[in-house]
Structures are given as C-alpha cells and as structure tokens.
C-alpha cells in the first residue's frame, strides 16, 4: 500500500494533469489559448509526481524500475516533464496538447488500478547502465509523445473536429514538420536505448541480446520508426498517411513499454 503522503502527492499530480488537460481542451473549444495556465498546471503535476517518486524511493529503498505501478508512475513524471519542456520552449508544440495530455491521463487512470505493493529490486538491476537505458527510453517516449500529439491533432483536424479552430490556425506545415522532427529524435533515442540496454543485459545476464518479449517488441518498434522515416523519404505520401504512421509507431511503443510488462509482470523478469 502507498503511504498517505505518497497517495496525496499522487492524487495531486493527477489533478494537475487533469486540470491542464481540461484547460487545453477548453482553449481548443473556445478558440482561446490558455497556454500559461496549461503549462503551470502541467508543471505542478510534474513536481508533485517527482515528490511522489522521491517519497516512495526513500520509503521502499529502490527507484521506480520494477513493478507496473512504478513504471507508470515514473513515466507519468518523465513524459510530463519532457512534454512540459517542449510545450514551454516550442510554441508550435502546443496545439498537440489536446491529444498528448489525455494520453498522460490514461496512464494516470491506469496507475490507480494497479497494485502499489513494492517488490524487491533484483541484484541485476543495481547497474548504472540500467539508469542510462531507462533514461534514454524515457526521452524516446517523450519525443514520441510530442510527435504523436501533433500528428493526432492534425488528424483530428482532417476529420472535421474543431473545424473553425483549425481554420484559425491556418496552414499546418510547421506542425507537420515539427511532428517529424520529434519523431526522428525519438528514433535516435530509441537506438541509444537499445545499445544501453544491450550493455546492461551483457553485464547482468551474460548476453547482450536474447530476443525476450521486451527485446523483440522493442526491436519491432525500432523497425516501425525506421520504416516510417524511410517511407516518408521514399514516397510523396498524403499527409494523413504520414501522421497515421507516427500514431501507429507510438501505439506500438506504448504497447511495448506498458503492454509487455503484462506478459512478464516486470521488464525482463523471466531472466532476472
């Protein structure tokens, strides 16, 4: 069971994310920007999640690496942080918040449904390459979240949602270009994540690649990103097709990050 302070921080963080999502949608519906409000609420959520992780870390004695609860909690923090930074520094990213922020909310609601019971960190996890591997993975997924926010927003525009607001935004070439920039950045960090993971696996289990569930799906995700970038370079695709590939690749990454632990209960648990 989480402690009272952990629960309070967790609910506070979720409230921050929910409020920032509501503010983003309100801004979209009313055709008014609530940028500062969205950013402030999102940042407050990030800070509360950081405190929540720190409190739990001190209490259970290990970082948020092991259980589904810990993986969701750490990703709520890291994805929120990366998205908040992008939202703050790159104004073009902001329209995508109506898609990206609800994804964070989904993670938050999911978090409330899983057991918060701590586990024991296996000795193989006491390795600084694990930190590097996990850190790179979080930058990958964060970059992907920014890209999917923009791509999802653009797809929504094509389907007729918020037609007036989309018309007000004018042409969307910059949003399209930015989505692909973050997607390409995600590909770089995914590649680095695979390398760091291989070094960790070699140290921990005596093999750098063994095609376990998580490794296989991580490779398939990497391939999906590569195929998407190659397809865009090869064909003059309709814009919606490119955005759909970004959404598809993110979905695959999401299932790999959060779906595979359903099969093995913890990342790489079969070979801990």
């Amino acid at each position, binding site marked *: 069971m989480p402690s009272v302070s952990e629960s309070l921080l967790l609910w506070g963080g979720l409230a921050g994310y929910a409020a920032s999502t509501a503010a983003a949608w309100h*801004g979209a519906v009313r*055709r*008014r*920007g609530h*940028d500062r409000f969205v950013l402030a609420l999102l940042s407050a959520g990030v800070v509360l999640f950081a405190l929540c992780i720190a409190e739990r870390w001190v209490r259970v004695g290990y970082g948020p690496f092991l259980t589904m609860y810990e993986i969701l909690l750490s990703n709520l923090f890291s994805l929120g942080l990366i998205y908040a930074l992008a939202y703050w520094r*790159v*104004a*073009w990213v*902001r*329209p995508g918040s109506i898609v990206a922020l609800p994804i964070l909310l989904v993670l938050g609601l999911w978090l409330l449904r899983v057991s918060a019971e701590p586990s*024991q960190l*296996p*000795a*193989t996890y*006491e*390795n600084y390459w694990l930190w590097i591997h996990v850190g790179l993975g979080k930058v990958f997924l964060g970059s992907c979240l920014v890209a999917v926010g923009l791509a999802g927003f653009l797809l929504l525009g094509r389907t007729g949602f918020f037609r007036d*607001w989309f018309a*007000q*935004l*004018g*042409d*969307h*070439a*910059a949003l*399209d*270009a*930015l989505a*692909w*920039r973050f997607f*390409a*950045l995600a*590909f*770089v960090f995914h*590649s*680095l994540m695979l*390398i760091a993971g*291989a*070094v960790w696996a*070699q*140290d*921990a*289990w*005596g*093999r*750098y690649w063994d*095609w376990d*569930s998580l490794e*296989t799906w991580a*490779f*398939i995700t990497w*391939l*999906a990103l*590569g*195929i998407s970038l*190659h*397809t865009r*370079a*090869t064909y003059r695709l309709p*814009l919606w097709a490119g955005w759909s590939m970004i959404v598809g690749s993110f979905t695959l990454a999401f299932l790999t990050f959060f779906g595979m632990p359903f099969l093995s209960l913890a990342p790489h648990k079969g070979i801990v």
Partner: protein
Amino acid sequence: MILARLASLKLTLIGMLALGVGVFLGYKLESAPLWVMVVPLLLLSVNLLAALATNPRFRRQSGLVVFHYCLLGVLLLASVGRLTTFKGHVEITEGQGFEADLVQLDQEGPWHPRSRLQRVRFTQGRMRIDYEAGLQRGETRSEVVTGEDPLAKRIVRFGDNVPLEASGYRFYTTSNKGYAVLLTWIGKDDRAVTAAVHLDSYPRRDWNQRRRWSADSGTELELELHLPQTVPMDRAWSLDSRDADGALAVTAAGGETLALNPGDTVAVAGGRLRYHGLRMWMGYEIFYDPTLPWLFATALVGVLGLAWHVRGRFFSRPLPRTLGGPAEPERAATRNAVGV
C-alpha cells in the same frame, strides 16, 4: 542497371517489412527457421551496398552514410560473434582450480579456438550470497585467486553485474550454488582418492541435501548432509562459504547409517572414508565473444552518425510556413504560432 534496381528505396522498405515479419515469426513460432530473419538481412545488406555504390545523393549525406555503414558493421560483427562464440557452464568448489575439462558446453561457434579455454587459470575463493526475508535473493559475491606465480597472485571480487574476465572469457555467477562435502576414500589397497561431492542447489533445494556416491572401489554410499540451521524465511540472512558447517550421514548398501563430523574417519564396506569438512560450490555461466567491444563502438558511432544527420536534416532548417511554400525563420514562425 541491376545495381540501380538493387539500390531502390522501395526494396529497402520491402526488406524492412520482411525483417519485421521475420522477427515476429521468430517470436511467435519456436520452430521458425533462421532464414526468415537472415534472408531479409541479406536483402537489406545488398540493397544498402548497391545504394552506396550508385546513389551520389545518399553518399553526400555523411551522417546517414556513417549510420548505414555501422548498421552493416553491426550485422557483420554479430555474425562473426556467432561464429566465434562460446557458451558453457561449470560448477567450481571453494579451493578448487578452474578446469576446462569440467565445463559443460551449451553453444560453440565453429571458429571458437577450443584450446583457448585451457589458458584460464584461477582458484575459487570465498562466496557470499545475501537474502531478504522470504528467500528473495540479493547480492551475490564471489572471490577467485588468479595467477600461478605466488608473487603475482591477486584476489578478484565479482558477482552480479560484474563478471570475472579471464583470457577473453566472462564468468557470470548464477543462482545455482550449493554445498560440497570434501571426502577422501581409502581403499583396501591404501590408495586414497579425494573428491568434492556436490550436493543439490542450496537453498533452492534445501530439502534434498543427499546423494548417492560411488567410491573408487565401486562401493555405493548414500550421503546426507545435516546442517545445523534451517533456511530462515522470516528475516534477511547471508549464505557465506566461511560459515559452511554440517554433519554427514553415510549409509553403505545394506549397512547402518554412520554420522561423521568434519575430521572423522569411519570404516565402511570395502575401505575407509574420511570427511574433511563442508565447502561451497558456485555455478558459473561462461561467455566468450571477442566482438563485444567492437560491436558496442560500431553501434555507438552509427547512432552518433544518425544524430548528426537528424540534426542537419530536421533541426537546422527553419520550419516551413505553408505547405510546399517558402520557409521562414523558426523564431518568426514561433512568434506567429496562431492561438498559442
């Protein structure tokens, strides 16, 4: 003409999709043949080499070229690694030197120099494994003494996350370890044979610390270890080879059961048995792949090349203002971001 066709980006996409399907098949079907992955990889390699030979526009993008050369390098090194690899396992008792002949082979590539394993020299020292309550395994530490020259001897400590490296081989501690009873059998001809008899894995199979042992003269003995303590389940504890202690019950076929403490000698059918004491053994997995550092370096250089390309291709250009229209500086575009 043929090269140009082989260099097609469409072929690249086909190869990548085929590789994805191959990986998926390999994951879902245990019986999936190796070619489902090898053929797409070969196709992609040929496609890439053809593109490098025929596509000057591709060659001008130095970061991208470095990335793709490195992908080829990773593929090549991984293949060489498969040909030269060695995987095996061995159990070594405290105080015992490593013997290559005792290694059980798991996998060996055709280019692995078998004699190389004979070069490995070390003697097993102390080992200690920590457990949390509920028999949750914590840290595993092992010590070995390397070097044959007494002046050059040194103690190497290793364990989880840090393998022992010897003559290019990596020795990984495993969860498989246990007790070994150190015995000397003295036959009627006064010939003495000393052996370390490994018992079942401990504490995983603490209930089965017994085994049948065939002495040198063919006498069958039933050995059973009696430890002074049981495995604590309700608290943290450590399994330490320095604390190894226990009595041995020996039963010869049709005879009575004799209890031995360390240092005891008893007469049993066909000879005498001396129980020197209890030791621990550690199970190691052995891994050899000389390509590892090159693989790491090649992959890293490749991704750095990719990062360089992405920076130039995606991040050093201003964002376009309109679809297909002229670009304008990113700062202005950001300032004009509508509604935000």
